[in-house]
Each structure stands twice: as structure tokens, then as C-alpha cells.
């Protein structure tokens, strides 16, 4: 009994029409069926946040969604954050410059979470940043570099917005 459904989902601007097993999680569908391995699995029970993606612009744990539930929706993963192949998003640059990543495994989830957060909160305090990423676990950095990167990114995005 491997029941399947046909779904159409747009991921990072590209439309995919696929047949997927109904019990497959969104994370496994993206990683294994579409080869989008940027989104990572750290716990598969909704705590670590490594699997976070943006569903219609809102952060969601892809280990807690079925692939079939993505039918008709738009998703952004870490692979879709950079504006082009040779340019990084200011948030990614800020991570690089503030040592916001070490092993890089939690990073995709941190980035998507912060993309949403900074879009909705362009001028956050440190405390607000810490609360924003409290659903994302990191074992390497102690969060300091990530928080610094988020605050730095907020500044960079502000400058870009204000640019003539």
C-alpha cells in the first residue's frame, strides 16, 4: 500500500509536478525526490528547527508536514535565499562575516527563520532576535555569532532599503 498523490508545488520560484507517497514528509520529498538537500533533518520531532522552510512566506518545520500538504503552495528553502548564483543575500553575508555558522547543519533553518523574522521585524533588539531563533537549536556556536549576524543583517537590509 504505497498510496500516492500528484502534487504541484513551487519551490524557490520553480514549479514541480510530482507524484509523491502520501506518508512522505515534506522534508524527505524535497531532499530525496527533488534533490534539494539544503534543508536538513536533525530530530524529526519538531524541536531542533534545522528543517525550517518558508511556506507561503511563513516559517514551518518541514519534518512536521506531509509533502501532499504542500500541493498548491509556495516554498522557499535555503537554496532560494541568495538572489543569484554569484551573489549572497545580506543575511548570508552577515552570517559569513560574523561567524554565524561552524558546522553549518543548523544554518539552513536559522536562515529561513531569520528571513521571515527580519522581514516582519526590521529593527529588532538582541532579546527579540534570541526569542525569534529560540525554536532553532545550535550545538556549535552558542548562538552569539548567529545573533550578531542577525543584528548586522538588519542594519544591512535597512541600508539597502534606504538606498536611493
Amino acid at each position, binding site marked *: 500500500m504505497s498510496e500516492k498523490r500528484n502534487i504541484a508545488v513551487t519551490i524557490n520560484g520553480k514549479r514541480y509536478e510530482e507524484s509523491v507517497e502520501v506518508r512522505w514528509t515534506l522534508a524527505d520529498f524535497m531532499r530525496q525526490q527533488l534533490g534539494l538537500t539544503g534543508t536538513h533533518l536533525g530530530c524529526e520531532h519538531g524541536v531542533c528547527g534545522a528543517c525550517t522552510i518558508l511556506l507561503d512566506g511563513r516559517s514551518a518545520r518541514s519534518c512536521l508536514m506531509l509533502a501532499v500538504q504542500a500541493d498548491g503552495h509556495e516554498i522557499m528553502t535555503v537554496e532560494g535565499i541568495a538572489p543569484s548564483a554569484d551573489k*549572497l543575500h545580506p543575511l548570508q553575508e552577515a552570517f559569513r562575516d560574523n*561567524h554565524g*555558522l561552524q558546522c553549518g547543519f543548523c544554518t539552513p533553518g536559522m536562515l529561513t527563520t531569520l528571513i521571515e523574522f527580519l522581514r516582519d521585524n526590521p529593527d529588532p533588539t538582541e532579546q527579540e532576535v534570541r526569542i525569534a531563533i529560540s*525554536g532553532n537549536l545550535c550545538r556549535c556556536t552558542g548562538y552569539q555569532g548567529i545573533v550578531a549576524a542577525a543584528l548586522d543583517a538588519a542594519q544591512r537590509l535597512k541600508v539597502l532599503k534606504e538606498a536611493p
Partner: protein
Amino acid sequence: MTARTFGNRVGRIEDPPLLTGKGRFIDDIAWPDLAHAAFVRSPHGHACILGIDARVALALPGVFGVFTAEDFAPRLKIDRLIVGLPSSAYRQEVNRPVLAKDEVVHVGEPVAVVVAVNRYVAEDAAALVNVEYDILPAVADARAALAKNSPNVHRNAPHNLLAEFDIAYGDVTAAFANAPHVFRESLWQHRGGGHSIECRGCVARYDVNEERLTAWCSTQTPHTAMQLLSGMLGLDESQLRVITPDVGGGFGPKLIFYPEEVAVPLAAMLLGRPVKWIEDRREHFVASTQERDQFWDIEIAVDRDARILGVRGQLIHEHGAYTARGVNLPYESAQTVTLPYEVPAYALNVKLALTNKVPVTPVRGAGQPQGCFAMERLLDRVARELSLDRAEVRRRNLIQPEKMPYAKPLRSRGGMAVLLDSGDYPRCQQMVLDAIGWADFRTRQSTARARGRYIGVGLANFVKGTGRGPFEPVTVRIGPSGKIQIYSGATAMGQSTRTMLAQIVADQFGGAMDNIVVTAGDTAGTAMGIGGFNSRQAVMAGSSAHLAAVKLREKTIAIASKLLNAPVDQLDVDAGAVFVRAKPKTAIALGDIARAVAGVPGLALPGGIAPGLEASEAFVCDEMAYANGAGAAEVEVDPDTGAVSVLKFVIAHDCGRAINPMIVDGQIVGGVAHGIGNALFEWMGFDAECQPITATFADYLLIGSSETPDIGVLHLESPSPLNPLGVKGVGECGVMPAAPAIMSAIEDALSPFGVRIARTPILPPEILAAIHAAAGLEKTLAPTL
């Protein structure tokens, strides 16, 4: 030549793919015919296996095979993982099998492996494998394990004492007999799992064209894996390759070689298709090694001026069900106790006890944090009893800088003398005291207390052995492409190994890092390697990289000198070419230099130079480089709930010389956060039947961003004389002072209640119980443990 990248905050070469989702972690590896494995694991702490029936599982569509110990036996030349580091302390050998045959000794022990078309089906099938068990008594507590009437952890073992040793020097008996003051503490120290955000994993593929088995392992020790696989599978080095992909954190458990890393390659060979196994988080709790309990009974003798006369005691260390590493963990605990201080006499008896739980092996810190904790708690006790400032007691006993190098009458595990090579311990202590505001804290504290707030400060010093020898080879090579290739047995797990090596080599080649390619942790890249643990790679691999790069630079310039017809001392290297300093346009690209010594049939090499453009070094150093530092914490305790907030943490650290300050800071902060987690949150709990009771992330608490304070990092650099770079290890040091400083601070915050803490971690219910007990209230709350 002046260093251009060494010491600078250069960007990491690891970052670009990791930032854009282009990392290649173990679960990212795939082929169309890849099969997926799931393990059937023991649900019992201790049981006999009466039978395994896999027929229903095998019949499930999509299942390629189900393997048990019986299926693997014909293919195993050695059927146990014999991995224990040598020691005279062992009283018995308990080595892990690949799959359990007739006895299981911990929840999570692998019993069978299912291989199927995907992990979903593999898990369906695993649930259908019928294993019949006869349950045996399980031993949960290390102390109880050593009692005369204890059931056996292994039914055929003589007893549960795995190993015993003593570490001692000086005359403790005399020291204690004549001491004006003797204070004794019973401590329970517990650390938990590694819990890298990426769990373990292994992918194996036998390539018929290469006639070679390749295993990708999310491991810290690929060369060790290769050696063990070679012996167990009866393959020679040409038939085997182990590659580490990007590793999402290691922290110790990934340095171990595991049964799954044999089972997966065997399954791949038996099935004739590539097989992948990814550990899920539930498995990590029961199948990856972890640290757990240590029980210390320790006393300190001091004179009337609080100067240490001696320290002695006993340590019972929980080893788990098998030897997955050795006796090193408690050995390091015992070694570390006295390191920062003048201790004329010392004796610690150490017993390692078997229990029916997953084996215990190092997690970041590797036993040293526990030794530090024991000593720091004793010194806090001395301060309290003699009504002295805690910092003052330490000041009176810290080894003074003019005494460096300081010989401790101790021997390392390998028999090397323990020589504290360099450092200014009192200065590090003063740095954190100043940063935390120790001197006028009492004023702040009384003001806070008047407002019903309970704040406190604590302090801890540490000395940590780093740079575990004997070597870590590095080859640096320039090929016709002109790229500078670095190969090393060193392994990356997030600690920026590749950037570290690239920076060191770049310094010899004009400082440009974009011309450098680093291959780490691939047995095809270097024949030998030891791997990443014990904060060793900057010291060992870094030194090898430096020496190799210096040699290679010399050779490169020597060849260029012949080709350019210019004297060596007029030449320099920059951006991929050698050029005449005074006439930079007169240059020759590195690739052309490589081509010149690649050999043309029948022609002599220019000017009698030796072939090829490479240098290999395996810098040997047996002595450890001793890093040191101090940590100070300010905490607030809510007396109504027992909740502890760490308001501030500062750490001073001496890493010898910082290769990349950004990376050093990142390692220290990460280590401190881990230590805070160990002090206040992480407890790996088991019940009396050795069933894990904190086996999800909802119950086992990793520290999050809201619980982590801002961590201030201060630096001192006392270059180590032991290696050409003067560096000391960094990766684990942040863990060291966290728990003792925090416990000290909690006691300070709750001093009106007279709370004493003899454990780590401590959780709110226990703090509340301590407050109520001390206040003599009727309603005492039973502690959780």
C-alpha cells in the same frame, strides 16, 4: 617573511556552500540504486536472544535483505570491535559485536539490520522482525554495579569492574595526618550526550570497477575506521577507502568506531548495491556513545593559610556496557584535578563500572571538566570554611607564571611526563574577576537582596591538556593546475579545520587563500591519520602543515630560481606565482613550476632538482600542550521556583597563539554554552531497568538562544614551546569552567539560605529543595534524583 593570514580574522573557506544549501553531508549522498538501512535494536537493558525470525520482514515488498549476526559471521575476520586504547588498568575485556548474537546488554544495541528501497519501508520491515528475548536483570547504577551481590552486566563476565587504577604522587598520608584542616565532598557529576544537530551516518558502496569498497562516514576518525574495517572485513588498504563528508558537528561521539559502520558496508557487499544508514535522533539517544555518571568522594587538606597540602579520594566512573574507547575519560578526570594549583600530594583511586547502558566515551571536554569541577568545589569549600574570599584561596595556590614550565609528578596515559609548558594562571583569574566586577559585587548583591533578588558570582580556573599526540600528517602539493593542494588526516566537524590549514599554508605562499584546496579526512588523500578529538588538530595538523608548507615554499623558490635564473634571496611568492621582488613582472606561475618538475620523458630535471612539488610532514609531539584559563559567572536564582538564569559569563583563555581569532572565539563561546547546558539542563536519565527516560528533545534539554547569556571572551597568548606555531588547542576549553563557576555562583546567590551544591547538573526542583531544607521548612521537596 611576515605572516599575512596567521592571526587574522579571515573568512572561512567552508562558508560559501554551507550558506547556500550546497553542503554535502552524509545524508546528501545518493545514487539511483541506493538502498536504505534501518536497525532492529534491543528494547531491553539486558536479555538473552532466544531467536530472530525475519521471514515476515523479508516478505515485505521493497525489502532487499535482513541480516543478523549469523549472516555476517562468515564475512568477518574479526567479529568484535576491538577499539580500546591500551592500558594496564583493564580487569576484563568487553568488546562490541557488530550485531548482537545471543545476548543484548543495553537498550539500543543493534540486533539486525534491514535494507530496503527507502527508510520508510526499512522501518516498516524492522518492526516486523520478530526477536524473542528472555529478560535478565539490568544494572543501572555504577556504584551498585560494584557491590558484591550485583547482577552481572554481561551474564558471562566475572563481575562488573571494567578497570581500576590509581593516580598518585607525594605522601598523602602524611599530608592529611598533619593537616590543620581537612574537608571532604561527595560529588555526583553527570554529563550527557553529544547531540550534534546532525546525527551519525554511514554510506557504503562497493565499486566493481575500482574493486574497492568506499565508506562515507560522519566520523571524526576516518583512518581509524579504515584500519578497523580492513582488519574486520579482511580487505587490504587498496580495497578500502573511508571518506568524511561535511560533518554536522561531532563533539566526541563521532570519534568512536561503531557496529553500524561495519554492518552497513557488509550489507552493501552482500547485496551488491550501495547502502545508506542515517541515525535518527531516537537512535542517537540509545546507540551513540555519551557521558554519564561519576561519583566522587574527595577530600582536601590545607594549612592555616589555606594552602593545599594534599588532595585524595575515590572516583567511580560509569563505563556503560562495552569498551568503546578505553579508560581515558576517568583517567583525564583524575589527571586534571590538580593541574592549575600547587598540590604537593595527590592520590585518586579510580574504578570503572559496567552498566547496562550504551557505552560511555568522551563528549567535548573528555573527562577533564569533571576533574576541574572537583577541585573548584573543594576550593570553594575551603574558602567558606576558613571565611576567605574564593578568589584569594585560589590566588594563594595557583601555579605562578615564573614557575613555567612546571613539572607535575604525573604521567599521561601514554607515559609522558605532565609538563605545564606555559601560561599565566593568576593573570587569567584576575582578568575574569575584573570583567565580572568581583571586587564590588557585594554592594550590588546587597542592593539586589534588599529588593528580593538573589544574585551571585562564581569563579573557576582550568588547565586543559590539548594537542594529543603523536602526530597528524599533512601533505602540501602543487600540481600543474597551479592550485596548492593540502591533504590531511585531520577531520572537520565544524571547527574550521580546512580554513585553519589553508591559513597556515597560505602564509608561505603570499597569503592568498583562494588558490588553496583542502582535502581533509579522506583515506585516499593521506595514508595515515589519527583524527579530530582532544583539541589536537591545530596543534598537530597545524604544525605539520606549517613545516610542510615551509619546505614546499623553499623547494618552489629553489626551482623557480633555476627557471628564472635569479638568486633565491631575490624571489618571493604571491598570488600563485614566484616573482623577482624588484621586478615583479619577472615571474613564473606555480603551475608552470610544477610542470617543470613533473618530468618530460628523456629530459633531465632542471638543475638537479628532485621530482615533484610536494612536501609531507608528520610533526611528532608526545607531550600535551596545556591551555589554561578562568571563567566567572553571574547568576540570578528565583527562590520561589529554583530557576537559575545565567546573567553573564566571562572567560579568559590562553590558546598559545590564535590562528584565527574569529574561529577561536567561536569555539570558546560554543564550549561555554555546552558547559552551561551541562550545568543546568542536560540530564540523560534511565530508570531502574536501564530504559532511557529522557529520550526526546522535549525531555533532554539542549540549551537554546534564550537561555544562553552573552559570553565575554578575553585572551592571553602564552605561546607553547612544544610546537613550531606555539599554538594550544581550543575546541573543548570553553566547557571547563562553566559548571564550577555556575555552581559557585548559585551558592553565592543563595548564601542567606546556606545552600551547598555537590552535583552537576542541578535542576530547579533540587535547588528549591535545597533552599527549603536549609531554611528548615516542614515542606521538604523530594529531589528528582
